[in-house]
């Protein structure tokens, strides 16, 4: 591949991202603008922004790679990624918006009336953001290495730098515009090349599915996953989405609970549309670039397939387009994570002002960058999946029980998050270090969500039951606030959820 094509694509996306953020800076004036775009973002914009932020390296590159190596079993990943939003809609979206908090720790403190619970949640949010940025940077390294032949660290450095500039300059409002733009860029970048390639294949009479044989299990190069693995993985993706800090922060930018729900419906449709395309890449890749599976570079399927199928200048242009789309994926997810982590650092370490936010953003960019340089990518979809398992075992139980169960106490929440987080982290680390022979023990450690999530829930419930006196006195008032509809369906721009509520004795 001509390295200049890669340079041009990466430079174009980076410059556009920075320009949009600087443009956004002019219209973001208050602290509220900076953090949550003052809650005036409309559902379509917001849904595009959520999609833009959510479709990370794992979605853009990883899904096609998985379909390439494991066939129909690879399809469970995008289903889990999308269905996570269904769960978010059902259990979290509207109450979360009505809670009126900016961040997950804000929610923990408001719901549990406890500073220690806030502290524990803050630490988790920061850890999750950093862990999730690392695979994005790995993806950037891979993309830039393939596109331009530059050493791996350059890709990670470019993403870190661009994201730092746009987050520090613009905050959340400009990020909303940038993210919404990036969703449509990503969709175009992944759809146009594959549609073009399909047309070319159809016209020249080359096989597309080879009479259906591409779908056969015999074409899989990865060993077939066990049922336990599929179940545990789907479970962690379903619940893990609830706990992703950069996803939650987006819901605070809806004007009210009802629009938070409508936004989520649009997100589901956008994600479903998007995931058709990586699947097609994976299927075509099984026929035309099977050598990638053998060389362990299956994550590069999306990047290399257009060039392999379409010759000449058209092929070069299409390759530039997918490279640009992949870069947009790294930039948008990383900046979303950076915003949420910086928001938490700013509020908990500094005084919550704009300067603290910017300092937090710098810190949260530099540390994952160092981690990315020290580690090797293990397959993008896999490493992102582990982050989902971690949030499903920690933040998801806090949100679900906090929203739907009166009995949750701060002691219970902290104990449950500690138990879930420790077990999940220890399982994943020991699976990596011990390198057990394939078998039930190795599976339980490598995909821990199926048992760590129930443990986290149980610990939260049991400890809360043991400490009933720690229930906040105003728990009823807090739950009223989470579940009460805004005054009338569509208005609600005036801060219904921000209003003050009388305190009173705890009724239950």
């Amino acid at each position, binding site marked *: 591949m001509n390295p200049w094509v890669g340079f041009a694509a990466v430079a174009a996306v980076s410059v556009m991202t920075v320009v949009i953020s600087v443009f956004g800076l002019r219209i973001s004036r208050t*602290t*509220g603008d900076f953090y949550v775009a003052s809650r005036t973002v409309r559902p379509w914009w917001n849904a595009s922004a959520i999609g833009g932020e959510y479709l990370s390296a794992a979605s853009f590159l990883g899904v096609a790679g998985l379909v390439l190596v494991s066939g*129909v079993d690879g*399809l*469970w990943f995008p*289903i889990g990624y999308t*269905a996570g939003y*269904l769960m978010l*809609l*059902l*259990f979290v979206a*509207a109450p979360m918006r009505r809670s*009126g*908090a*900016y*961040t997950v720790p*804000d*929610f923990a*403190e*408001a719901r549990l009336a406890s500073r220690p619970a*806030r502290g524990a949640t803050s630490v988790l949010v920061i850890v999750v953001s950093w862990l999730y940025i690392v695979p994005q940077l790995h993806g950037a390294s891979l993309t830039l290495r393939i596109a331009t032949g530059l050493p791996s660290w350059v890709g990670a450095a470019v993403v870190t730098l661009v994201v730092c500039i746009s987050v520090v300059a613009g905050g959340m409002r400009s990020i909303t515009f940038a993210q919404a733009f990036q969703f449509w860029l990503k969709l175009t970048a992944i759809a146009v090349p594959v549609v073009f390639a399909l047309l070319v294949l159809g016209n020249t009479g080359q096989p597309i*599915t080879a009479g*259906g044989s591409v*779908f056969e299990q015999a074409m899989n190069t990865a060993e077939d996953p066990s049922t336990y693995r*599929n179940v545990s993985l*789907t479970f962690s993706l379903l619940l893990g989405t609830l706990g992703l800090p950069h996803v939650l922060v987006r819901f605070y930018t809806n004007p009210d609970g*009802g629009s938070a*729900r*409508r936004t989520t*419906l649009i997100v*589901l*449709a956008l*994600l*479903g549309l998007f995931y*058709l395309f990586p*699947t097609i890449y994976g299927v075509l890749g099984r026929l035309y670039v099977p050598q990638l599976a053998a060389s362990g570079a299956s994550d590069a399927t999306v990047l290399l397939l257009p060039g392999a199928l379409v010759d000449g200048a058209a092929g070069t242009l299409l390759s530039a387009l997918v490279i640009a789309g992949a870069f947009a994926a790294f930039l948008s997810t990383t900046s979303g994570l950076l915003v949420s982590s910086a928001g938490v650092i700013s*509020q*908990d370490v500094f005084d*919550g002002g704009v300067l603290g936010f910017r300092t937090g953003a710098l810190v949260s960019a530099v540390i994952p960058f160092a981690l990315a340089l020290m580690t090797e990518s293990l397959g993008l979809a896999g490493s992102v999946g582990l982050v989902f398992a971690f949030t499903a075992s920690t933040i998801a139980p806090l949100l679900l029980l906090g929203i*739907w169960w009166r009995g949750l106490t701060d002691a219970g929440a902290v104990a449950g998050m500690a138990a879930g987080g420790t077990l999940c982290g220890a399982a994943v680390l020991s699976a990596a270090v011990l390198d057990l022979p394939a078998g039930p023990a190795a599976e339980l450690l490598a995909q821990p969500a199926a048992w760590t999530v129930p443990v986290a829930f149980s610990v939260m419930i049991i400890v809360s039951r043991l400490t009933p006196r720690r229930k906040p006195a*105003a728990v*009823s*008032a807090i*739950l009223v606030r989470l*579940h*009460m*509809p805004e*005054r009338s*369906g569509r208005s609600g721009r*005036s*801060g*219904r959820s*921000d*209003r*003050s*509520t*009388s*305190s*009173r004795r705890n*009724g239950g």
Partner: protein
Amino acid sequence: MSDADKPARVRVTAPRSKATVAPARFPVAREVAEHSAVGDVFVRSLMRAQLRLALVVAGGFVLVLLSVPLLLAVFPVLADLSVLTIPVSWLILGALIYPFMCLCAWLFIRNAGRNESRYRDLVDGR
């Protein structure tokens, strides 16, 4: 009702957030309903209705999702069905499951909205 006999008002926003606090703009009847024993019953029943709805939709979705590999395992004949050489399992898991998710979401939003307007009617005394 004079100011003196009202209980002291305490804000339950996250104290460290910089959320702007708009004054309440609600009818007195509603305000009272929210903070009485009756109001508490209303809110509890709203919560129960919303939770039941969410669990039913989530359960239905997961059931349909799990039935795909299950049916394929029980009736291997289904695995041989295909449309334009694409096997049905790929067609369902790769494409059709997404519109189904949107359908679930749409049903939930419609019914959650209904639960809420029923609650609103109760509280506003209509």
